[in-house]
């Protein structure tokens, strides 16, 4: 047993520092993706509620496409195919040059695009749950449409969307494990590398499980705090 734990040492002889580096990449990727995905999701949700029929159609098609595609495929498409097309385009102008989309950027875009598709439905549910009277009240108080949205609808919408978004956050955290196919060394990839070399699969997979569970625990503490904050001013029964 002591022998197994020595495998987790930090420094040149152990895998502790590699696993931590992987865990850190997982966290960074998820945290950078989150704001991008949230804004995209809210924008798509508003598009789906728009008056103009074409804008609604764009929002709906977006959701259908990116909720429907397997995320692995979305990653491949953005990391490889967009890269390929960008290169073709660039090489028409300057034949000897090339254009690189970094793995991290491709990961953020792909995961964010998928997060946006799913969260737009959560936002849509929240938007529709806010009575129309709230908007009308805001407008009749003389608030501009933007201010009505920001001061009246958004805080209520946020409160209603939070539980659903908390779910999606956990899904996002685990989906980061897909990025190993685009040359990023996330937690799961580092675990697999360690397993390949040490031939100790159960031990390392168990450690990875515990790290992911740790993330989940911290996340639920965070979302609970956010929910408490958003519920201020609402009577508890």
């Amino acid at each position, binding site marked *: 047993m002591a022998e197994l734990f020595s495998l987790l040492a930090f420094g040149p002889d152990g895998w502790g520092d590699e696993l931590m580096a992987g865990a850190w990449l997982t966290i960074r990727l998820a945290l950078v993706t989150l704001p991008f995905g949230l804004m995209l999701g809210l924008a798509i949700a508003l598009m789906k509620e728009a008056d103009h029929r074409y804008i609604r159609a764009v929002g709906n098609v977006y959701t259908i496409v990116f909720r429907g595609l397997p995320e692995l495929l979305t990653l491949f498409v953005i*990391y490889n195919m967009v890269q390929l097309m960008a290169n073709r385009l660039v090489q028409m102008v300057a034949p000897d040059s090339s254009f690189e989309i970094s793995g991290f950027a491709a990961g953020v875009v792909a995961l964010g695009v998928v997060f946006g598709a799913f969260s737009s439905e959560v936002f849509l549910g929240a938007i529709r749950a806010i009575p129309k009277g709230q908007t009308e009240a805001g407008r009749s108080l003389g608030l501009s449409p933007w201010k009505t949205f920001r001061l009246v609808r958004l805080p209520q919408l946020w409160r209603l969307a939070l539980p659903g978004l908390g779910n999606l956050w956990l899904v996002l955290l685990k989906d980061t494990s897909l990025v190993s196919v685009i040359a990023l060394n996330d937690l799961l990839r580092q675990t697999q590398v360690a397993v390949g070399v040490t031939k100790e699969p159960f031990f390392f997979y168990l450690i990875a499980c515990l790290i992911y569970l740790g993330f989940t625990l911290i996340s639920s503490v965070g979302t609970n705090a956010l929910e408490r904050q958003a519920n201020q001013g609402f009577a508890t029964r």
Partner: protein
Amino acid sequence: MKRANTFAVAALTAIGLAGAAVTATADDVVRIGTEGAYPPFNFTDSDGNLVGFEIDLAKAICAEMDVTCEFVAQDWDGIIPALLASRYDAIMAGMSITAEREEVVDFTNKYFQTPARFIAQDGSGITDTSPEALEGKVIGTQSATIHANFLEDQYEDADIRLYPTQDDANLDLASGRLDLVLADSSILAEWMDTDDGSCCNFVGGDYTDPEYFGEGVGVALRENDDALREKFNAAIASLQANGTVDRIAGEWFSYLND
């Protein structure tokens, strides 16, 4: 709508030119994709460095080609798509040359092959493994394999027994029912390191005839990247001629030294 398109092209072009400024000077860098999780071919040590037979060989090849090597490690699943998308220029990841892969990538000549070899019990006195010398001997291998095909074609005068698994054949060799077993040498070397396999050892030489044993492991390149393929082939040929490939392989595949 049309104006939007023009704008998008212009914007992409601008980004592209910015990128070009960075990469256009890097002409003599060859980027090599590998898996980093397939010891001893290529793997990652506990300090996070890529090591292994193919890493050392790639460095030797790049030195021979007079270019700088950069390594990219990524999962096996995306390794060919990323090559096609120019994420790197070559794959060295224990990738066997197969007809299916030949449809999407080009391969250099092989730089490595795990040869097929015979093993026998210690003290069997067998040293010559030619078909004539093995007349009447009992030889086992796994059925429906390249090794079974090879034995049935070339060793007609021997008594060939075919087993559903390689382990069954190995155990019958250990218990004395077989005189010899033929299989992939890396698999056999692994078995001979166990208690069951300690009875036995390699006899005779390597068998690598591509007609039976496939094409071996090569460097995968994008199709039509002929200039680079020629450079790789020339470097591999000269490293094979001066013994560098064998020396590096011997450092990583201990059974080759037996």
